[in-house]
């Protein structure tokens, strides 16, 4: 009997011990569920921990709004059941958020839900990271004085000098005449005097005339060459070009530079179309449905312009208003008489965007940074080696070319890259 009792006792001990261990471990695991981690894993796709609306309401101070009791557990574990039961508050929220069903979370226990709501009750307003990009517009204007104005000033000074000298000369001559008792000579009008002087100094005049003519015609010639060319290289690798203001102050520096979004994310046409394409404002909405404000100055107003264009209502979180197209100003313009394909250059030629568009990643306002003239195109075609690797379509042709131009590098020009009909037809 004693043995039996001992046996039972030892068994009980084992049970008790294991129970204690189990409780210890289970309490370690469930004593304090991490509300923030649970929120991130389960809720953050649709809810903000602040009071900002997302797909669902912001959860800051939510415990003050919802009915008390077990309502919160029922709602999280199966919200559609609560809505179906005709609960007033639940139906109200369901209608307010465009009948979006909150998926059931049966895996979340009551402690988890409490932990999440404790975390969100206080609110967690995210501190946006300060971007390095300066929010101000880039000062593209140069402070250098226009040399033309300098020349004009010098010319005006010269004319004044001539007039003063002439005035003194006439006065001196008159004084001399007076002294000699000769009658005072009437002063010639300026033009007449100039003609008089020119009549007596023909060779000098001709030389000066030819010099001025050549210089100015040369200058004029270069000025004419600049018509229709909107970019010039003021210093090596430093370009000044056409940079019109845009209806929305979209900064490529923030998007492509600081956030390193690839060019093709928005300009999707570049690999399968002639034009790279201005992205639709709906592409902006892929991110800006959520990001309605950043640390940059004026960002809220600019993002609100996207909402106006797409008809998005931030309060109702739906496209309810009429759409308004955004009329962007085109910067890099190729005239109508030249045919250019982005697809050909990017897919086959493997040309990087910045080779023709410049340092877009650092542009606040997009600027044309290459001249886009025919000479510029042709120069590149003459010097760029032909990309033959991985282009199976023209293998036979490429083999032929390799035989024909044995010792020299094969350029784009050798494959017909500078023939007139290649671009003009």
């Amino acid at each position, binding site marked *: 009997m004693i043995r039996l009792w001992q046996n039972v006792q030892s068994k009980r001990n084992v049970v008790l011990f294991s129970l204690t261990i189990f409780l210890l471990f289970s309490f370690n695991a469930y004593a304090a569920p991490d509300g923030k981690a649970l929120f991130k894993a389960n809720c953050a796709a649709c809810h903000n921990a602040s009071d900002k609306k997302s797909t669902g309401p912001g959860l800051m101070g939510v415990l003050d709004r919802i009915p008390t009791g077990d309502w919160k557990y029922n709602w999280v574990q199966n919200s559609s059941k609560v809505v179906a039961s005709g609960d007033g508050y639940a139906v109200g929220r369901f209608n307010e958020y465009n009948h979006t069903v909150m998926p059931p979370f049966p895996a979340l226990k009551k402690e988890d839900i409490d932990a999440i709501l404790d975390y969100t009750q206080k609110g967690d307003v995210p501190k946006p990271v300060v971007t390095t990009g300066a929010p101000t517009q880039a000062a593209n204007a140069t402070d250098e004085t226009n040399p033309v104005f300098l020349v004009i000033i010098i010319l005006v000074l010269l004319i004044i000098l001539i007039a003063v000298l002439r005035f003194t000369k006439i006065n001196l001559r008159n004084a001399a005449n007076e002294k000699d008792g000769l009658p005072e000579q009437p002063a010639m009008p300026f033009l007449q005097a100039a003609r008089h002087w020119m009549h007596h100094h023909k060779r000098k005049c001709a030389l000066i005339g030819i010099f001025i003519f050549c210089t100015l015609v040369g200058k004029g010639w270069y000025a004419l060459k600049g018509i229709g060319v909107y970019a010039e290289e003021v210093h090596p690798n430093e370009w000044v070009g056409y940079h019109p203001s845009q209806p929305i102050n979209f900064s490529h520096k923030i998007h492509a530079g600081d956030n390193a979004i690839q060019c093709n994310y928005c300009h999707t046409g570049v690999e399968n179309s002639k034009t790279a394409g201005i992205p639709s404002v709906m592409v902006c909405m892929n991110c800006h449905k959520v990001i309605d404000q950043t640390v940059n100055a004026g960002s809220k107003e600019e993002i609100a312009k996207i909402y106006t264009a797409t008809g998005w209502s931030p309060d109702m979180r739906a496209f309810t208003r009429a759409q308004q197209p955004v009329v962007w*100003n085109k910067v890099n313009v190729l005239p109508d008489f030249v045919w250019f394909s982005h697809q050909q250059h990017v897919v086959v030629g493997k040309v990087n965007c910045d080779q023709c568009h410049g340092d877009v990643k650092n542009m606040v306002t997009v600027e044309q940074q290459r001249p886009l003239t025919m000479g510029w195109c042709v120069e590149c075609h003459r010097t760029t080696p032909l990309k033959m690797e991985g282009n199976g379509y023209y293998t036979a042709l490429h083999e032929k070319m390799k035989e024909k131009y044995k010792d020299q590098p094969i350029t784009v020009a050798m494959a017909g890259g500078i023939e007139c009909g290649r671009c003009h037809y």
Partner: protein
Amino acid sequence: MKKITYTLFAFGAIAFAGSALLTSCAKENPDSPGIEYMPDMYRSPSVETNGINAWVNDSIQMGNMLPPDGAIPRGFIPFPYENTLEGDSLASLFWKNPLQNNDSIEAEGQFLFERFCIYCHGPKGDGNGKFVESGKYSAVPPNYVVRYKAGFLTDGHIYHVITYGKLNMGSHATQLSPIERWKVIEYVQRLGRGGDAWSVYQKKMQEQANMPDTTSKKVPAKADAGKVKPK
């Protein structure tokens, strides 16, 4: 001689005035590109991509217009499911990947994933992309591994989400062609499986199928979890 001199002076003056005018005009207004030889050739009356075509009529002035209702490109297979929860579940059941999975398709999918998805979904597909991590983007995308284990990560479902968007995610239908979407889906599946490439995964599945005793309980749970991949 006199005449020539005068002519030279006159020419010089005109050239000078001209050059002064041209160089000064271009810099005055940044919104104006400057002087053009033949404006018609720069801003042509013909239809240009992304241009304003005012000739359509007075109310429609944009060049970017939608195709007529019901028009589809040649060879394009329309997505028959609607942008609803029902459409989502129907697509996840019946919309199948036409591509035969292999490593090169996954590599292409990875390339596209890194261009279009990685900013929010993260390089591992755990919803911890750099926008989410830095707090710029407050909505956290789902974790592919979790969704895969729960059986929700089906090809048709991902296709539905890419095409129509879901919750805070916008539609990427304009950015990814149907074939590109399938390629991305292959890579997303790979991330959901835990990052192993298709060839490794296939070998593993075969090995598990050949060992019926110990792992047989786990295999169907993994293989049948919403997998609709053609073998």
